[in-house]
């Protein structure tokens, strides 16, 4: 940090201390924004957050974005941390469905998944069902097979939720085999130990077309065209009139944050996420930005929580 920025930060901190939390929205942001992620350093979320923080600073009025790791308790520790910080817009929560799944799995969860204000999606990965073409050439044959025999679907817990949600709506049942990591589930799919692999689109790209086809995209949000094409344009579950389940990298704030600050942040966040330069960096990292603005993201989030609540029951 340069001396100037340091001084500015010190002055800002002193002012903030002096004035309590009544920070005017007009000069937001005037100091460092803490970008909280509920995962440890080194994981996928950490990597993308750091890339974003480094690239996006210029869209946040010169305020620096400081990535803070608060892992633990099924990614709920970070959420609790955010709720314990002042609701002044200087603490942002950037998470995935992991903490939501934890909260919905608990009988007495410490917070409700609604205790956050969603301000946008930075990405939304899909649970894509990958199968061997000779076994299940299309969705209809897949569903009829499900009704005749027990079909095994493997994947990580989150991705199985997407699969279970889709299959449940089609009125069918399957055997969901949970895996700790995508590596293990894909190995078992390639080895023929399970019938279907529920994977993200980026993993699906490594399997399709040599070792399988993308049978169905169970997400609520379409994939980028280039990805869709490479996967052989799989149908979307929403085309069938069912609800889909996307796995967003969402960004939110303490619910008590003043509205002007939330609006201001959402604006700056949108500017950063739709900046072609930043988009190109994410594209190169193999995780293209799939941006949803505040309104669309909040609506999808609410639907996602409800859908998950039901789907989690199927997997317990």
């Amino acid at each position: 940090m340069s001396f100037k920025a340091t001084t500015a930060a010190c002055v800002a901190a002193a002012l903030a201390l002096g004035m309590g939390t009544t920070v005017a929205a007009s000069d937001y942001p005037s100091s460092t924004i803490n970008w909280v992620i509920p995962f440890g350093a080194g994981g996928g979320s950490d990597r993308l957050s750091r890339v974003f923080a480094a690239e996006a600073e210029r869209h946040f009025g010169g305020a620096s974005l400081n990535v803070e790791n608060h892992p633990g308790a099924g990614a709920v520790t970070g959420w609790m941390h955010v709720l314990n910080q002042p609701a002044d817009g200087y603490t942002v929560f950037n998470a995935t469905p992991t903490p939501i799944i934890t909260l919905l799995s608990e009988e007495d969860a410490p917070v409700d998944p609604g205790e956050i204000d969603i301000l946008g999606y930075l990405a939304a990965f899909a649970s894509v069902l990958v199968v061997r073409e000779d076994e299940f050439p299309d969705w209809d044959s897949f569903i009829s097979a499900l009704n005749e025999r027990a079909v095994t679907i493997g994947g990580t817990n989150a991705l199985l939720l997407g699969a279970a949600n889709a299959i449940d709506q089609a009125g069918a049942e399957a055997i969901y085999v949970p895996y700790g990591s995508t590596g293990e589930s894909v190995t078992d799919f390639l080895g023929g130990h399970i019938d279907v692999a529920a994977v993200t689109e980026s993993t699906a790209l490594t399997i399709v077309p040599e070792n399988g086809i993308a049978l169905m995209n169970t997400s609520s949000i379409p994939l980028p065209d280039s990805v869709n094409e490479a996967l052989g344009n799989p149908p979307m579950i929403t085309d069938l009139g069912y609800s889909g389940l996307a796995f967003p990298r969402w960004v939110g704030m303490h619910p008590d944050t003043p509205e002007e600050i939330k609006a201001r942040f959402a604006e700056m966040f949108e500017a950063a996420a739709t900046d072609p330069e930043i988009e190109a960096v994410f594209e190169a990292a193999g995780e293209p930005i799939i941006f949803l603005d505040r309104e669309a993201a909040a609506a999808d989030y609410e639907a996602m929580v409800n859908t998950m609540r039901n789907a989690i029951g199927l997997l317990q």
Partner: protein
Amino acid sequence: MSNWWRSNQAIGLYLLLIIGALFTYILWQPWAHRVMRDGFLLGMMPMMGVGLMLLCAAAMIMDPLRKEQPENLQDARTSDAWLPIVMLAGIGLCFWAMSRLGFLLASPPFLLAFMLWFGLRPVRLAIILAIVVPVVVFAFFTLLGVRLPQGILAGIF
């Protein structure tokens, strides 16, 4: 038999009581009896672990080595139990301070106190080391890209 309390048999008995209490606790928990979708009890594996411990503790009371005393326990004194606890409390306190004051402020007092406690003399050497070592460690970790807690010094770096 004055030293019976140090024998394997006695240790087995203490363990049996502690582990038995743990087993009863788990048995009383409602979650332990919840059936998962694959038919397994949620508490099955934990109970297997405690069960195995219980079995081994019982075996220690009865097996051929029961009369033997563990080597490290033969000259043990009561201070062997509380001194490590004091050490751990000191380390815990140091970490607690670290997360508030930062690594650079919390570790010198800890290092100084422990070095003197362990018998390092002269005092001057202990003071110098307690200041130099944290600075070197901090610099090294910063160079590697690991951010140690900065605490109230955060503004300076």
